[in-house]
């Protein structure tokens, strides 16, 4: 060995990373000693841009914070502005929003399972997960006109409606999805080589989770029983019954299980939402000027707790928009997770936390 210490850049461009972020691992032999991180490659200054756009335009800006969970960003933002306006949106719109939130959770978890499989060398699971995910994308495309960026939210409700026939069509497609999803969950639980690569890798104890304020599936996999849909329920979730999935192992395998079981739970939730879909209008007229005030709007994004702080000064443009996406909390724990890890485990650890860099950089 030339020098026992080597600096390995997992640079902005790397097959492991789907989005640009730079890790510099100092490696001794095969063991990672210390990990540095540089972010900001996809920083678009969305919080700054929002100050120059009207509330209506900011919906579409905020939808492009993250490519995977765009709907939950728009929903949280609209709920914040509606709170400022003191607007009560029709129940049907709340249910339609929740339906798309849950569909997006399934789509995000399946996408992530494919990425994990790809990074661990099991391309088959990537193909299967993304093939089954197409069913969810088709449902969302029929519903909102866009596979990923849905633009279904308006301030005061939702844009497109769902008639009876369309509901049955969605239910039929959800039935189509249940069986492959169950197979994927079985795969994650039993496949021997996948378990060999993910069990007790990238372990985070409950104490570390609380100290680093980690949120979402990563926290729930270590035993933290927090889910904003239940702990801080907004309209439709108050009368929807669902189970919060937690594990205690706290390693990449536990996180995989939590995410896949959450996806199964979300499918059941979608059915319940469609069953209880109330009738009535889908949106309410909203004024363009928002009275001065501040609001903190929280929601459960596929990766965890998402918070929007909006401050309005009475004009048409938000005075200040602060977004904190869940990936930032898991990013903080990465240097700690990567310490003392075998170099070959780095893909498992980096994929385990389900990084969404566009979210983190804003």
């Amino acid at each position, binding site marked *: 060995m030339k020098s026992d210490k080597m600096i390995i850049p997992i640079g902005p461009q790397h097959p492991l990373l789907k989005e640009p972020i730079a890790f510099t691992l100092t490696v001794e032999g095969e063991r990672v000693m210390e990990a540095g991180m540089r972010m900001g490659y996809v920083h678009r200054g969305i919080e700054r841009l929002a100050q120059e756009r009207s509330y209506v335009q900011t919906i579409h800006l905020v939808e*492009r914070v993250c490519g995977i969970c765009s709907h939950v960003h728009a929903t949280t933002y609209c709920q914040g502005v509606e709170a400022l306006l003191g607007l009560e949106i029709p129940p049907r719109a709340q249910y339609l929003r929740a339906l798309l939130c849950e569909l997006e959770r399934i789509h995000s978890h399946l996408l992530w399972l494919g990425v994990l499989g790809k990074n661990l060398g099991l391309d088959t699971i990537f193909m*299967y997960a993304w093939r089954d995910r197409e069913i969810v994308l088709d449902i969302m495309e029929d519903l909102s006109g866009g596979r990923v960026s849905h633009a279904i939210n308006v301030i005061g409700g939702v844009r497109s409606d769902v008639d009876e026939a369309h509901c049955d069509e969605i239910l039929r497609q959800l039935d189509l999805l249940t069986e492959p999803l169950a197979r994927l969950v079985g795969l994650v639980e*039993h496949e021997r080589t996948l378990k060999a690569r993910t069990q007790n890798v990238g372990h985070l104890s409950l104490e570390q989770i609380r100290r680093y304020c980690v949120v979402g599936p990563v926290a729930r996999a270590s035993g933290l029983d927090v889910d904003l849909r239940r702990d801080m329920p907004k309209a439709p979730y108050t009368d929807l019954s669902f189970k919060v999935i937690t594990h205690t192992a706290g390693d990449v395998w536990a996180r995989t299980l939590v995410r896949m079981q959450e996806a199964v739970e979300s499918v059941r939730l979608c059915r319940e939402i469609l069953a209880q879909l109330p009738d009535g209008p889908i949106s309410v007229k909203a004024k363009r000027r928002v009275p001065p005030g501040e609001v903190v709007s929280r929601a459960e994004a596929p990766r965890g707790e998402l918070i929007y702080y909006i401050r309005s000064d009475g004009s048409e443009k938000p005075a200040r928009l602060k977004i904190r996406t869940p990936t930032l909390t898991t990013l903080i724990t990465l240097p700690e997770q990567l310490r003392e890890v075998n170099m070959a485990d780095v893909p498992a650890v980096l994929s385990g936390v389900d990084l969404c860099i566009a979210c983190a950089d804003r």
Partner: protein
Amino acid sequence: MGLRSFLYLLPEAWRTWLKRPSTVRYPFGPLELPPGFRGRVVIEPDNCRGCSLCVRDCPADALELQRVSRDEFRLIFHPERCAYCGQCELSCNFGAITLSNDFVRATTDRDTLTEILVDRKPEPESEA
């Protein structure tokens, strides 16, 4: 349990082998798009009143209104800036602007894309 977890993926792989591949043959085959798909911006010139509600609400500044007088104005559309969010369709009260199903044709030169959607000229006064 031991052997089955070794060959866990085999039954699924075999089932996939027998089924038709699930990849779409686009561009060699057709691509089915849902009715609500948000594609190219299409205009109904007569409905347009030149009120520029759409221009104001477009998040990507893709629409531009050049006005000479009350009846003479031009609505210019820059497809390369458009984010296909459909906000213009929503903001327009006269149903003049909608999003069709086909997507933008590719081009090497940005300027060739710019389109003049509405070119309203004042009608010549018939009586003196």
